[in-house]
Each structure stands twice: as structure tokens, then as C-alpha cells.
């Protein structure tokens, strides 16, 4: 299953590694944004299935409201990826869950698969390890 994925991450190295991992898995990375504004622009200009959203971006801790907007208003499936998963412990409306950084290829793969299965309405049995789901 190939998906169009938007990476929202302000650390260039982390974003680049994530892009390689996703491309290795056969996905299409539509872009990398390091601010909320550029992320909104990219989401408007492209068809996006899934957004991987960091909470702390170049313009501050704007990831939470960005994720909510992408999920609730723009029909994008949202997975948070952050070093501070506690910040979204209470959940964010419209988002699936949070993956704690640093992570590895295996965890990214299972989490992305899980999110895409949910998006396409396919049955899921349990959440992959490392992914905390929002209620």
C-alpha cells in the first residue's frame, strides 16, 4: 500500500532519515515542512494521506494545533512523532496517536501501516508497540 505522506519536522537530519525509511517502504513523501505555515501550504497544494507531525517546530510548539487542523479540517490522517509524548497524552482530536522519538525503522513501519489501515477502514487487531493511541 503506497501512501502520500507529509513530514512535519524541524530537525533536517531526522526528517531526511524518515524520508528514506518511508521511501524504502514504498511510500511517496510529498514534502518536508519545518513550520506550521509551510505544512499548511504543502497540505493545501498536495493530496496528503498521512502526516507525521512533530510537536516542537521552528515556529514553536505549534504541532498540536496543526495536527488538529490537518486531521479535523483537511482530512489527513495524523500521527504525532515527538520526543515529548507527554505533551499530547490527553489526546488530540482528529489524530490517531503518538510515536516516541527516537524510534527505529521497524516502529515507523508498523505505526504507519497501522495508521493507513485505520484510514482505509481495514481491520486492525492491536496497536504496534511504541505507538500510543489516542482514545
Amino acid at each position, binding site marked *: 500500500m503506497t501512501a502520500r505522506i507529509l513530514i512535519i519536522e524541524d*530537525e533536517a*537530519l*531526522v526528517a*531526511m*532519515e*524518515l524520508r*528514506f*525509511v518511508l521511501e524504502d517502504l514504498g511510500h511517496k513523501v510529498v514534502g518536508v515542512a519545518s513550520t506550521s505555515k509551510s505544512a499548511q501550504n504543502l497540505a493545501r497544494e498536495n493530496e496528503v494521506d498521512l502526516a507525521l507531525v512533530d510537536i*516542537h517546530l521552528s515556529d514553536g510548539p505549534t504541532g498540536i494545533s496543526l495536527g488538529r487542523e490537518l486531521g479535523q479540517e483537511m482530512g489527513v490522517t495524523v500521527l504525532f512523532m515527538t*520526543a*515529548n*509524548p*507527554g*505533551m499530547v*497524552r490527553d489526546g488530540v482530536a482528529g489524530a490517531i496517536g503518538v510515536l*516516541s*522519538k*527516537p*524510534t*527505529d*525503522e*521497524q*516502529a515507523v513501519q508498523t505505526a504507519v501501516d497501522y495508521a493507513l489501515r485505520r484510514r482505509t477502514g481495514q481491520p486492525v*487487531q*492491536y*496497536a504496534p*508497540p*511504541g505507538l500510543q493511541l489516542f482514545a
Partner: protein
Amino acid sequence: MTDPIAEPARWDESERLAALRDYGILDTAREAAFDDVVALIARICETPIAVVNLIDSGRQWFKAEVGLGVRETPLATSFCAHALLNEDGLVVPDATKDARFDGNPLVHEAPGLRFYAGRLLKTPSGLPLGTLCVLDTQPRPEGLTELQETALKTLAGQVMSQMELRRALRQRDEGRDALERALEASDDVAARLRASEAQFRVLADAMPQMVWSTRPDGFHDYYNARWYEFTGVPAGSTDGEGWNDMFHPDDQQRAWARWSRSLETGEPYEIEYRLKHHSGVYRWTLGRAVAIRNEDGEITRWFGTCTDIDELKRLEQGRELVSQELSHRIKNIFAVVTALVALSARQYPEARAFASSLRTRIAALARAHEFVRPHTEASQPTVGATTLHTFLADLFRAYSDDTGAPRVHISGDDAVFDDQAATSVALLFHELATNAAKYGALAATAGRVELITRRDEDRFVLTWTEIGGPKIEGPPERQGFGSSLASLSVEGQLGGRLQREWAADGLRIVVDLPATALSRRRAAERDRL
């Protein structure tokens, strides 16, 4: 004869001297009442010398005298000392013919005394104090006439009456003085109390803190100026229990419970709450109070302070924020480093396995760091305490089975661990788990691990038992880097022992740590206390 009064006395000399001093007459100025007596008796007895003589220790002292010109002489030459030994008195017609005055310079040299007649001055209880006496340089073989003797006796009685009178006056004065002193002293105490209270109020009003005081039952009856300045309420309006309304509604119940407990138990009161400032905003305040007790240990008063700690709270929150931010950045660095490792390995496919094991080790460190870094309620990685068991459960989640159920079962005594122990704990269990996943119980579908942690007095023992894995032939020929890392963590860093038992049905590892190893800083702090 060297000691004229060596014969045994019929009284106690110290008692006599005490009685004499009690009259308070020694070394006082001349007084007409006594001068008149000696002048009169000298005229009546027709002697050039007359004396009111008091026998002190080592000297005789004259309250009044005529014809002598001195106020005291040594006791050694005294005629009167002899008189003290006679009930009524002593008459010496011619001292040159009296053995008692052999060698007395007053007789054999100037002034050449010959005649002496003395009458005792006795206290009502019979103690002799001295004499009223007359002396002449001419011998008088016939002694005194009957009139002279009567006059001497009568006037000696008068002298004693004078002395009694002045003693009574003196005692009355002393009594009055004592009373006055007592009255002054009590005035003083009252004045001091007033001064002390005035000082307290000045001090209390000058203090930067709010100060208050209550009766033993907790009824507030005093607030200093700062309280009224801070709260802006009218003086007296928070007396009694009105103070509680000044607290933030969310803090009122807590503050009331704490205060009630202190009132019941006498324990010092200490609490942080939000107090309403006159500007309408609530400011964080530290409230403290202690009980003042009397000698019987009963509480007589409570004195309390309220300190505005709003600034401090803000600083504290600011510092927490900085520490959060720093911690977040560190966590981020872990993410950047693992990304860098992965990106680097992409250039060298043969390094893939190496890069992967390095990444998972760094990830384990990052997980452990997440558990020990400073957290606020919001940043906690899990709900509840960050303990060893919650950390390990999190670390082993990657080895869960296909249904998401854990394959490493953790049981026994839980513990907390600090940032110093985090690296070692993370590396140790990461290595044990990856090793089990490669070669041991976690490599088999049905395999599992039992991890039991047990606090045993001053030791903390962790037992890792692999079950259901491939059969083990014996210890491996070569120790891998992962095993070295595990040993190093336990023996080098945590100061414990790591023991491997290669049983046929599975590897068993016992890690025996000092109980303090997991949180050394906390243990050190406890020792300091």
C-alpha cells in the same frame, strides 16, 4: 594578758554581732539624742569622759563620746569588753590596782585612765551590744554614788530605747522601701509588658511579611499592618474566622483542614495557598504558624506569618520550564544522533547490522532518560510513577507477542531509579533482551522471560530467567560486546555482581546490587539528614 575577752561567753558571738549590725547604727554620724546622753552622764558622774560604746568585732565604736576625741579604738585596750562579761556592768575604782588592766597602754601611758564605770546595753533578748560608760584619769576608790549609779543605769536604758526606736524606724523604712521597690518592680513589669507589646507591634508592622496571632482556640485577634496593606480589607474585618474568605476558593478547604489539624495537635502549621491581593488577583503565599506554650506545655497563643512567594513561584516555574526545555533538547539530540547513524549506514550497506544495534542501544538510553529527567505532570511519559517496573515494561514492549501481550514478565518489589543509574539500567536490560531475542528465549515463538526483582535488606536482586527457548549446550565460547556491556554496567557502574548460569533449559542471570545503587543521590541525601 593578751586577750581580754578570752573567758567563755554566755552568748554566741556571731549571733551578738548579727544583732548589733541589725540596729544599723555602726559608723553612722553623731546624733543629738546620744550626744545629749553622754554630756548629761558625764556631768552627773563628774567625769571628763563619757561614751556610748558598741563592741564590734576587733574594735569598739563610739556612737557618742565626750572627752575622748575619737570614734573608735582597738578592742585590745577596751574596758567595756570586760563589762560585757558582767550582767549589770562593771566598776573599776583604780585600774592600776586591777590585774585585768595590767599592761593596758591606756592605763599605763597617755591618757592614764584610772576610774571606769560602765552599764551594759542589752537587746530585749539579752544580747550585750556595748556599754554606756564614764572614765576618769583620777582613781575613785568610793566608786559611784547611788544617784550616779541610778543615772547611769537609767540613761543606759534610754540609749537602748533610742537604739530600739531607730531599729524599728529603719525596719519600717526598709519595709516601705521594699514595698515601694516591689511596687516599682510591678510597675516595671507592666511597663515592660507594654513596651514589649509596643515593640512587637512596631516589629510586626515593620516586617515584610504579614503577621497574625490567634487565641489557643484559633480565633484570630491580631493582624499586622502588612496584612491590611496586602488584602486591603478594613481593620478587624478578618478577626475570628473571616480570614478563610481571603483564600482562593480552591484552597480554602485544604487550608482549613490543615489549620484545624494544627489546632488539634499543636503541630506547626505550614501551607502554600493563593491569597487575595487588594488588586483583586490571587498571589501564592506561604502560610506558617507555631504555637506558644506556657510552662505547663499548654498552648497560650498561635503566631503566624504569611509570606508572598508569588515571585518565587514564578521563578520556580520558569526554572522548571528551562529544565524541561533543556531535557527536551537532550531528547531531541538522541533523535538526531540515531538519524545520523541511520543516514551514515545507508552509504555502507555492510554496516547495516552494526548501525541497527547502535541505534537500538541509543534508543534504550533515550527511553531511560525519558524516565528520569525532570517532569511536570504534563510531560510524564506514563501515568503514575516512573519506577523501574514501568520503565522495563516500556523497554520490553518491543518484544511483545503477536497479540501485543508482553513476553517479559516483571514481578516482585518495584524501585525508583535516578539519572545516574539510568544509563546502566537501560544498557543492561537492553542487552539482555536483544541477546534473548537473537539466541535465547525471545528467539522462539513460545519463549518468555521471568524477571523477578527483590529487595533483600541492603541488597536489590534482579533475577532474569529465560524459559522455552532453544536448548543450551553450555556457556558460549566467546563473550560478545553486548555481554561485556551488561557486565560493565552492573560491575563497573552500579557496584554490583552479575552472574550467568547456562542451564540447559535456559539462561539464568542474577544481578545483585547494593540497594542504594539505583538512586545514589537520594541515598546520599538520606545519609546527610
